[in-house]
């Protein structure tokens, strides 16, 4: 509550930036649909509640004219291009609105043969940042309500898209909270970390929102839903929860685009992106691997070099 007062006078980002991006997205979406270049534009539209936004599959110019880009546009729409969610889209080429972080996911999907670049018209959006989980969407975006990922974002401006909507305003320099949290955990003893994560995972109710919003969880049959053989217990008990989150982090290692949607949507506030962030950091330190806005031929864990580190092997 106290955070709001301070920020209402000086919004973190000039709202005009979002307005400009909105106008550009609408223009492009209407043009694409009218010209018949695409059968649908996956974008955002406003929800009932003040400041809220939701994914929208616009198939008409009228619907396209309602698309928006606001700090409430948290979703990673690349999800709709993964085969698991493709059912929601009409056949033919589609356009999709992506922030920089979403674009990394889109590139990843292309790299993993889930999608071909020419099947999609990519509308990048210059994104100054979006709300984090649990933020009061009715209030202007403030440093406190900005998503943690956005504080350390290196991809505010998408590259390699067919078009970029909006321009970037000067962005405030904010403390890297997530990096700090990661460092704090790394400095702990294994026992302390175990206690930290046990408490986090114990809360998990296995609503699987983390999995369902992840563009990379596109498996038709999730390993963790299998019961013969059962590698991970399906019931929401601390043991199964822990195994589930470990397995998921491992499956995303070298693939995760860092959109942090899993963390945002977690109704139990489990800081899941810390796991993904940690893996990304390790893979970068070990192999110089990073997920990028361009599709990559080889993933960090689907390739190797003769000289890879083996100091941990006796």
């Amino acid at each position, binding site marked *: 509550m106290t955070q709001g007062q301070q920020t209402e006078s000086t919004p973190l980002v000039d709202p005009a930036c979002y307005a400009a991006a909105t106008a550009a997205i609408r223009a492009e979406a209407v043009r694409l649909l009218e010209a018949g270049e695409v059968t649908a534009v996956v974008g955002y539209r406003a929800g009932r509640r003040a400041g809220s936004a939701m994914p929208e599959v616009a198939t008409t110019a009228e619907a396209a004219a309602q698309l928006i880009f606001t700090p409430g546009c948290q979703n990673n729409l690349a999800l709709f291009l993964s085969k698991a969610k493709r059912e929601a889209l009409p056949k033919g080429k589609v356009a999709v609105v992506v922030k920089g972080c979403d674009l990394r996911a889109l590139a990843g999907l292309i790299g*993993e*043969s*889930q999608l071909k670049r020419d099947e999609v018209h990519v509308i990048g959006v210059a994104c100054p940042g979006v709300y984090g989980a649990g933020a009061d969407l009715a209030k202007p975006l403030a440093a406190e309500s900005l998503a943690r990922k956005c504080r350390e974002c290196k991809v505010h401006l998408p590259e390699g898209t067919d078009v970029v909507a909006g321009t970037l305003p000067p962005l405030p320099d904010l403390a890297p909270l997530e990096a700090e949290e990661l460092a704090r955990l790394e400095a702990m003893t294994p026992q302390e970390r175990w206690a930290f994560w046990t408490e986090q995972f114990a809360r998990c109710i296995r609503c699987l929102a983390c999995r369902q919003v992840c563009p990379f969880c*596109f498996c038709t049959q999730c390993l963790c839903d299998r019961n013969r*053989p*059962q590698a991970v217990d399906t019931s929401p008990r601390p043991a199964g929860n822990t195994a589930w989150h470990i397995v998921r982090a491992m499956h995303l290692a070298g693939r995760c685009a860092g959109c942090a949607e899993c963390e945002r949507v977690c109704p139990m506030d489990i800081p899941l992106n810390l796991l993904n962030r940690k893996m990304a950091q390790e893979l970068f330190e070990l192999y110089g691997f990073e997920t990028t806005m361009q599709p990559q031929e080889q*993933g960090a*864990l*689907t*390739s190797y070099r003769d000289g890879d580190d083996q100091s941990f092997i006796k």
Partner: protein
Amino acid sequence: MSRIGVFVCHCGENISRTVDVEKVAEAARGLLGVAHACDYKYMCSDPGQALLKKAVAEHRLDGVVVAACSPRMHEKTFRKATEQAGLNPFLCEMANIREHCSWVHEDRDEATAKAIDIVHMLVERVKRNRKLQPISVPVTKTSLVIGGGIAGIQAALDIADAGHRVVLVEREPSIGGHMAQLSETFPTLDCSQCIMTPKMVDVANHPNITLHTYSEVEEVDGYIGNFQVKIRKKARSVDMARCTGCGVCMAKCPQKKIPNSFDRDLGMRPAIYVPFPQAVPNVPVIDRVNCTWFKSGKCGVCQKVCGPGAVDYAQQDEFVVEQVGAIVVATGFNLYDISEKPKGSPIKGYGEFGHGKIPDVIDGMTFERLASASGPTGGKILRPSDGREPKQVVFVQCVGSRAREKGISYCSKICCMYTAKHTMLYKHKVHDGQAYVFFMDARTPGKGYDEFWRRSIEQEEAVYIRGMVSRLYQKGDKIVVMGSDIAVGIQVEIEADLVVLATAVQPRQGAELLAQKLGISYDQYNFYSEAHAKLRPVECATAGIYLAGACQGPKDIPDTVSQASAAAAKVMTLFAKDQLEREPIVAKVNERFCVGCFACKKVCAYGAIEEKEIRDRQGNLVKVVAYVNPGVCGGCGTCQATCPSKSVELDGYTDEQILAMIETL
């Protein structure tokens, strides 16, 4: 409920001395799904095996665990016995309670407890074993050989002599490769052409060899035993069937001043030409870039003078598709052009040595052509610049090779020997000449090699200077070579008439493109990778593809020929049976769950994973999934560990089996 039989072997006293075998059998009897358990003195003996077979029938067993020695010892024995008992052999597993238990533990209680655990694990495993059938793949007994140098020729002749058809593809108008360019060969100094040309003729005349020269491999599909190869036969502009090789066209061609690359551009050739007189086939080709007819539509002399009417300007590239069962890759090497940085290569040039700028700085192959009796100078050593006989010649070894700062860290292997040979050839031809050699090390591991090298110093008076050349420059008609003699610790300066650089051996340009067509792997330099450096040095990771010669790494002629024959032997082994039989420990894809991310394909070292389209009844594409070619799969299971949804599974090592074993903890 399973009906597993457990047979605990005493192995004389090898096991029973430390492990209470009766107790193990008793514990096994208490395990869920175990229908029978017993112990016996020697399970591997005939009576032991008979016991097993009898028990299978008597107790209607559907799985067998033999708790005895290592599976590496007797798995075959017991699987055979199981098969004879009427069960699928893969329903038999061995619990290793000897090497892994009785022999390494002394405490009887501990060893017995461990043996029981091991048996338990294997019982759980075998309950989930599937019946597997050996995989057979039909084999087309024709081999493709890519490259018509000495490696390809040798492999082709060996395979053809064994009675199998060979398709030999050569990029150049003639087979022969680098060896045809050489003057004399170390360590015997016999004339290269004298030993090479008869083999070339053998190839041309062999009834089992189909020769495609001036041709390239365009596409490769399929897998071991069953490749389809599309070959592009470039337009020769001369009808092979009609041409008699009389050579009138070449004599009459008005264009005579085209540098002949076979002679390292020292000699000239016409626009219609054979690269060298002994070419096989002896059919000329028109160099369309330089031919007046193709440039301006005028001339047409060769067509007019050709008696049989073989010259055909309208000829087009042709495509031939061949079905082959095996492929030998023998694409050889290039000598690295050190004058400048080659395009797209990480390797830096040697501008400082003046190659390409100073005409009398030449490379080793150019020296070969100078020394060759059929070369542009008729075998006389003459300077390219003024045709004078050089009296002081400096040879520089390791130019490019072993030069990490230039991007090549390997040794080119042949240069020490051919430089020694060059000093000899030079001395034989220029008796009053003096040869100097700058070298880092002399590497002469080969039969008669060190003797040969010593002869160049001791008898032919070559002066070997241990050290590298730092700089070369033209001074009047001399080339000043500055270097260090690290043996003595002084700077050396030699005024030379001719400098010969022993340049690095590199893979063929575009080697990686062919590798991609073939689906074989290559190293950082684009040399092709063998499956195993020690144990499978002529096989590629991709089944059915074999390597011969310098495409795999620098090699001299004897090594090349040996490897070519070895590759041929591998092909003949493959062709010895009509069907390729292999153990069914291969990966299979669950097409229902595969989402086609192809992580499996990325990690498969065998190239066994293909993309398969799934279509509905109307023919609409539903999805693309992975398909594992069982003929190619090596059975390592890396794909399964990589697959996020476990939609690919390695038979014999399924997750279900492994997790059940872990469950017994």
